[in-house]
């Protein structure tokens, strides 16, 4: 639209603006590297239809749909995080439309590809991995970390980055996968020890691959396509899939009251067709198709989640548990880790030092102090049972969903109690560890 002209003669342009009937409007968190090829492929398959792409990050897209529900102008929501779709579905913002497709199995790695209620559809699969910068690890003489456990080791101190689960739906899935795979207590301990090695917790999920690409950090916990696409763009990076990983689909859903529901359905069907699935294989996109047949034309080394050797220990991901404690887990992570990263890092570093000093010494007193410090770092203010109790989880969800449930306090009250719990424990742990080091 030529705005120079419209500014001088507003009325003139109005006649031309009526051509929206054949436009499908999609709001998406995907980069244009992904949307552009699909837009081109779709528009050449359906020349009479235009795909209008509105880019927003997942959170902004959800807020946008919530704020504008009274007069919706968006046809489709297209993003990675299944949680975001769960939120939209719960609020009745997604339409259940019967979409035709074939050749796509019901599950991938134990995770249902499509929403059983038919409100959103998985079109690509993603795993989570450890991305690392080869120049960085060479310069710092570091081994490759292939498992989550590896990242806990002292040698990685200051070399790791991840994004906050509250800011990135995909990261939340990673966090939840480890919690489900290792159990609540052990899972959180793993995250705290890894976080103690971090130099940053980023706000954007893309901040992590960006930091690894530029060499600001050595290792990043990322969704696979970031690593694969970075590598395809020429950056000196590699991606390792840990054996415990979740394979989850990236989704698309039709918005309730979509202005062009027919066109929206057309686009979803195109995405799920073999033709659409093969677009995913292009180097700038690098996402895993959900149709096993699409892998026939895949480049060599392209990971295939349907193959036997892929992520052998993949867990059964419990979507209900994840959804139940979604906000609580995010809040816990931020309060215990993101906002107190400095304290946590100091404590973990002190413990690592103490352990290095006493690796051989066998000093009972020091080892006891170290064990106590470790326990303080790993301690959680909330048990798994409490984390699934509606009277606590509902503190963190919007009032509109469940106003009747008794709750145990206000979010800020609870967060403040967690915060003082964490700060006190971390500082005490550091003091104990320093004490142990001094016993040398």
């Amino acid at each position, binding site marked *: *639209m030529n705005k120079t002209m419209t500014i001088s003669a507003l009325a003139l342009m109005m006649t031309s603006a009526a051509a929206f009937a054949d436009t499908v409007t999609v709001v998406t968190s995907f980069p244009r590297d992904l949307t552009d090829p699909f837009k081109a492929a779709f528009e050449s398959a359906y020349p009479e239809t235009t795909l209008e792409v509105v880019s927003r990050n997942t959170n902004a897209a959800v807020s946008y749909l919530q704020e504008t529900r009274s007069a919706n102008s968006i046809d489709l929501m297209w993003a990675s995080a299944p949680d975001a779709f769960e939120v939209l579905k719960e609020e009745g913002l997604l339409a259940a439309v019967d979409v035709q497709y074939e050749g796509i199995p019901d599950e991938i790695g134990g995770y249902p590809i499509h929403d059983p209620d038919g409100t959103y559809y998985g079109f690509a699969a993603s795993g989570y991995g450890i991305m690392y910068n080869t*120049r960085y690890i060479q310069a710092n003489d570091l081994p490759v970390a292939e498992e989550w456990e590896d990242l806990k080791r002292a040698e990685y101190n200051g070399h790791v980055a991840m994004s906050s689960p509250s800011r990135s739906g995909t990261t939340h899935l990673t966090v939840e996968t480890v919690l489900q795979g290792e159990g609540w207590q052990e899972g959180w301990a793993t995250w705290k020890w890894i976080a103690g090695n971090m130099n940053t917790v980023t*706000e954007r999920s893309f901040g992590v691959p960006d930091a690894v*690409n530029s060499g600001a950090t050595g290792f990043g916990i990322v969704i696979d396509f970031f690593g694969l*696409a970075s590598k395809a763009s020429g950056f000196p990076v590699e991606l390792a899939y840990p054996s415990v990983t979740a394979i989850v689909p990236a989704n698309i859903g039709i918005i309730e009251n979509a202005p062009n529901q027919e066109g929206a359905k057309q686009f979803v069907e195109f995405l799920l067709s073999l033709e659409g699935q093969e677009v995913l294989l292009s180097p*700038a996109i690098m996402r895993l198709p959900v149709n096993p047949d699409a892998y026939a034309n895949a480049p060599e080394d392209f990971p295939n989640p349907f193959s036997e050797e892929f992520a052998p220990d993949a867990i059964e991901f419990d979507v209900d548990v994840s959804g139940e404690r979604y906000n609580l887990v*995010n809040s816990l992570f931020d309060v215990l880790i993101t906002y107190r990263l400095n304290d946590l890092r100091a404590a973990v570093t002190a413990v690592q030092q103490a352990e290095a000093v006493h690796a051989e010494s066998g000093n009972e007193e020091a080892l006891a102090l170290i064990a106590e410090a470790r326990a303080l770092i790993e301690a959680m203010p909330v048990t798994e049972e409490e984390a699934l109790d509606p009277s606590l989880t509902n503190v963190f*969800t919007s009032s509109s969903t469940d106003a009747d449930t008794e709750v145990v306090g206000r979010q800020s009250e609870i967060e*403040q109690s967690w915060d003082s719990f964490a700060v006190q424990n971390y500082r005490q742990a550091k003091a104990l560890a320093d004490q142990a080091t001094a016993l040398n």
Partner: protein
Amino acid sequence: MPDSYQTASRGFTLFPRLSGAAISGILIAIFLMAFLILPVAQVLYVAFLDSRTGGFTLQNFQDFFNTSLFRESFVNSLYVSAMSVVFATLIALPLAYITTRFNFAGTAAIQALGIIPLIMPPFVGAVAMSLLFGRNGSVNLLLNQYFGFRIPFMEGLNGVILVQSIHYFPFILINLSASLRNIDRSMEEAAQNLGSHGMRMFRRIVFPLAMPGYLAGAALVFIKVFDDLGTPLLLNVNNMLAPQAYLRITGVGINDPMGYVISFILVVFSIFSLWASFLFMRGKDYATVQKGGGGLSRRDLKPREKWLAWGVILLILALVLSPHLGLLLLAFGTIWSFSPLPDGFTTEHFVTIFTQSSQYVWNTIIYAGSAALIDVLLGTAIAYIVIRTGLPGRKWLDYMATAALAVPGVVLGIGYLRMFHGVQLPFGLGQLSSFWGIIIIALAVRRLPYALRACMAALQQVSLSLEEAAASLGASRTSTIRRIVVPLMTGGILAGFVTSFATAAVELSATIMLVGRASDAPLAYGIYLYMQSPAGRGAGAALGILAVVIVALGTYLSQRIIERERIRQTMSHDQH
């Protein structure tokens, strides 16, 4: 003589009639209510709601002060803002002093370059700075390689202070330079006559006289840094107030009122800071008797001083232009990873953006240009009403417009969505909230305080007797404003336009909520899109360079046009 004058209201002190000023004042107030106060109130009133019952409560504020994280964030924000003002002053003062006090070859270039840091698009600035100054950035890689140590430029709050002071020091530079140029020469000569000279005179006479300009700039820097969330977020610093507000407002599905409480506190604190600076400046209205005969006397530098001046200036410029240098390397580089320089150089990224992204450029020019135009119109009008009329409540226009500084862009964006969604425009333009015109209004509201401060400072420097002379010669108020006030304010209005335009051109936080279609998106949004993928980093940087070039060109052109206009004005009657 029309009798209507006799019946007019006589309540005002300067001109006894219900004048155009009153009408403009009311219209501006309505505009600000509709596009700033009400949308923001729509968002902020959540701070007073019980998140479960929806009833009115002050509990949330109690929670805020009971939360240690928030108290620390408050202190951190205060510390970062104050230190940023200090560093911004250290950068701006030598530049302003040297370019206004001495005959210096590079004056024009330095003053122009001094504005460039303001036009660094978000995302790319911090990326570029991290690549240069980060823990494994060029500087630290080289330091580590040759000297075996690193300097933590970008660690934690340091990084925020560094990036903010480099980004915002032009506010001080612009305002301070304008004030310095308006000081009457006799002030300085009187001081010299009484035995004062050099730095001592600068400190005791020149700087105090330039204080209103300096304070205007410093207050802007303080409040902008206090409210800014982009930089801390990009540097992953969470424990400051603005990022805390943002993180809590934008979380999916969370109903945490604390984000709104923090936003409310940000707004209140910023207004308090402004009020304090107003109080401090009261009674320091140093209007020179006459503009035109004024300006500090410039002297030539001795050769040694010249070298020293060039040294200082080049050092400062190298620092403040480093984000652009980093951006340039990124835009022309192939792969840049864990190395002082990119692996190779290419123009490929520019080819990419020229084939894909021309609509961003036009959108940006139109949006930022219109917004800046609205801003200087409103800014001049508000400045005039506040300083030159006795309209009751006139100060509130200033307060309201300035309060926009304190509103995080995302709050304004959400406010617009809440308020204007569902308002159907005529002529098939669609929703008001997704109409591109709303982006212009959002930008204008967000940048109005910049233009307003510049216009206020300019008007304060225009002696009242120059206007009275016109009035007594029969010029109506409108005519006086048009022919006397505005031409004499030209410098300040221009500064306001440039600042508004340049910063609006790279604004993202409000627009990201309001862009309805990719075809309506401005440059900063395009950069944001590119920067979300590994392959797009170079292209995003190239687009960033394009943005800088466009804004610099726009700045240069507007300066030329107004300069030519001024020359034309003074010459036209001379050759009849």
